């Protein structure tokens, strides 16, 4: 059965080329709130929240039952008068940081968040260093190898 399981994984991987394994129809008509402002906020929050049983899908995109429960939960909290912040905090307290698709800036995500700036800075420093180094000892052209000398003289002979 191992081969079969591998095949499933392999297929899942090709499926993952598409983002997910199953085509989905996420938000259902009966979930939509009548208050358009609240619904817009709910959709915005849904895109920030991960469906924990899926591969890299937000609860807005997923048709897993858990995602549906979470969407309804988000809407319940919003209807009860929670702010966006409070809804997110509530979900984090319940499911942990894993539920957030945009991890908060903390010590263990510092490297993640600082990468873009660090990469730019490192690149800029490297460029600066390269420019400074280049002030010294710019080398001349590389001499030809004997083989190339031969071919060159052949070509000169031919053309003359």
């Amino acid at each position, binding site marked *: 059965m*191992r*081969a079969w*399981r*591998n*095949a499933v*994984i*392999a*297929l*899942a*991987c*090709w*499926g*993952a*080329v*598409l*983002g*997910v*394994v*199953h*085509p*989905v*129809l*996420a*938000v*259902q*008509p*009966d979930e*939509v709130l009548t208050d358009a402002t609240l619904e817009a906020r709910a959709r915005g929050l849904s*895109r*920030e929240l*991960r469906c924990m049983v899926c*591969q*890299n*899908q*937000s609860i807005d*995109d997923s048709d897993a039952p858990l995602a549906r429960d979470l969407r309804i939960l988000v809407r319940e909290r919003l209807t009860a008068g929670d702010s966006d912040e409070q809804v997110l905090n509530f979900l984090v307290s319940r499911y*942990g*940081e*894993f*539920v957030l*698709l*945009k*991890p908060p800036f903390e010590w*263990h*995500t510092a*490297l*993640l*968040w600082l*990468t*873009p700036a660090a*990469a*730019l800075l490192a*690149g*800029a420093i490297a*460029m600066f260093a390269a420019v400074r180094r*280049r002030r010294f000892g*710019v080398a001349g052209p*590389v001499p030809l190898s004997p*083989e*190339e000398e031969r071919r060159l003289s052949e070509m000169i002979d031919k053309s003359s």
Partner: protein
Amino acid sequence: MIEEIGHYALVLALALALVQSTVPLIGARTRDAALMAVAEPVAVAQFGFVAISFAALVTCYVTSDFSVRNVFENSHSQMPLLYKFTSTWGNHEGSMLLWVLILTLFGALVALFGNNIPASLKATVLAVQAWVAAAFHLFILMTSNPFLRFAPAPLEGRDLNPVLQDIGLAIHPPMLYLGYVGFSISFSFAIAALIEGRIDAAWARWVRPWLLVAWMCLTLGVAMGSYWAYYELGWGGWWFWDPVENASLMPWLAGTALLHSAVVMEKREALKIWTILLAILTFSLSLIGTFLVRSGVLTSVHAFASDPMRGIFILAILVTFIGGGLALFAWRAPLLRQGGLFAPVSREGALVLNNLFLTAACATVFVGTLYPLALEALTGDKISVGPPFFNATFGPLFAALLIALPFGPLLAWKRGDLAGVAQRLSGAFVVALIGAAATFVVEGRPLLAPFGIGLALFVIAGSITDIVERTGLLRAPLMSVARRAAGLPRSAWGTAFAHLGLGITLLGIVGETQWNAERIVSVKPGDKIAIHNYDFTFDGTTDRNGPNYKEVAATFTVRRHGEVIGVMQPSKRTFGSRGTTTTESALMARGFSQLYLSLGELNPDGSAAVRLYYKPLVLLIWLGCVVMVIGGGLSLSDRRLRVGAPKPARIKTAMAPAE
């Protein structure tokens, strides 16, 4: 019998790869022409044997030979012929075989058409190419053999995942692999340059056509994958920042940077060491991309070990080629000599800036994709890094790059005049400002939309500024414009088109993300839904039978201002063999915008849940990619740049069978 031939051919290909990876190298070191000459016929023969092997697997699939386990697991006798064919690579083993097919194809093409490359460099390049091939042949034979059989043969196969039963599978993976694997050529050239210890502008010319072909294929492959996801998945998203998508984006970003740094090297002999490093990194990212997808490590850190042999093999290949390549770089790169000097404000400077931003964007995607895996492995903490993170980090980096983009091609080499260029771009500024202002007046809302539209128009207008000026489009008579246009170098057109394409894509992205309208409703026959000037009437559902599925199609009549403009039929397909259901969305193009309709739950009372979208300018996203590829093609066809490089026309014909 056929599968044994295929298996045996693969073993022979491995043997040839081992010959090719050693003998020509010894020849190049000892300056022995006979040993170096071994590389060419062996490279062609190696490709021949892999082609035989691949053809054998295709035959097994097309004839539904279920005695082959791989066919049994991924095919079904009732599938349409096209999908029987494409399911050859719709699984791990087959896709790895497609990978080596393309790898050896590129090797054979270098052997056949790289006539202007010095013998020792060519021999070394082919040897390096064979190292990669040998590793992959071994990987397939030892851990992922597609030709394994079992008896008695089952009567029916388990079918291909229905989501993959689409024309997308025929185009997307082969194009993507042509791109990924195409970068192996620049990798081999880079390693060969390091081994030889010398490099010059000619190196960039030899690599250029291969790089362009790979980049074009990868661009198309990524765009095709995006469009496929868009229409197949039923909720109208076109980019998900999924790790697997990121795996294809990273080589694209690095490859784009490489394309630009190679220009500096070719024209000015500068940035040599950086270009070599980038060539190594680009192919490394292709390898990582392949393995991120293939190893299952993305599903979970633990899935990686589901087949320990495969996992260890994968790690060994990555460590050998990436680690080995970088170690060789660290050791040999100081031997390479630097070339031309340039002022910070110059074409070279602009291209360096391009590289800086593309590399930083690539690093961001790389860290964002792998960070959760690394963190979990090291500390056990589980975090998610998804679209909101990438939008917040990648977005600003790319916006900065795009603001700078129109300046680059207008700056002179060596020392540029920024004020002068800004003046030449004043037309583009004006266009951008008008666009942004108009958007703001109409929307009166968030600044993102006006900024996005302004930026997109700036890139579009800025990209054609050079062409407009040089052809005298706005002042000279038409005939002289045409004459001047024909006289412009193709590479100038290539630059303009590629940048123009990027602007068009951005315009599509801004349109789709800012003004996407959506209705999620439940409808009964006779009900109407309205979206952005269009009215939809639900006429009811019909049952239909496909070759290997049953489907329920819903019919919607579409009206605009009361007039019928067409019918849309989204459907739900049920595939009996796997019991899975797919959603087939219905699309209707209105100019560059699209109406998008997909079905949800169908209830016994005849009502249906539907998702209806109006997606403004969405088609520009992919159209822009096509324009970029046209730019690449124009650049490839520039006669001035062919010196010392294989003739592009011949590349195209030779590659045709692989597509």
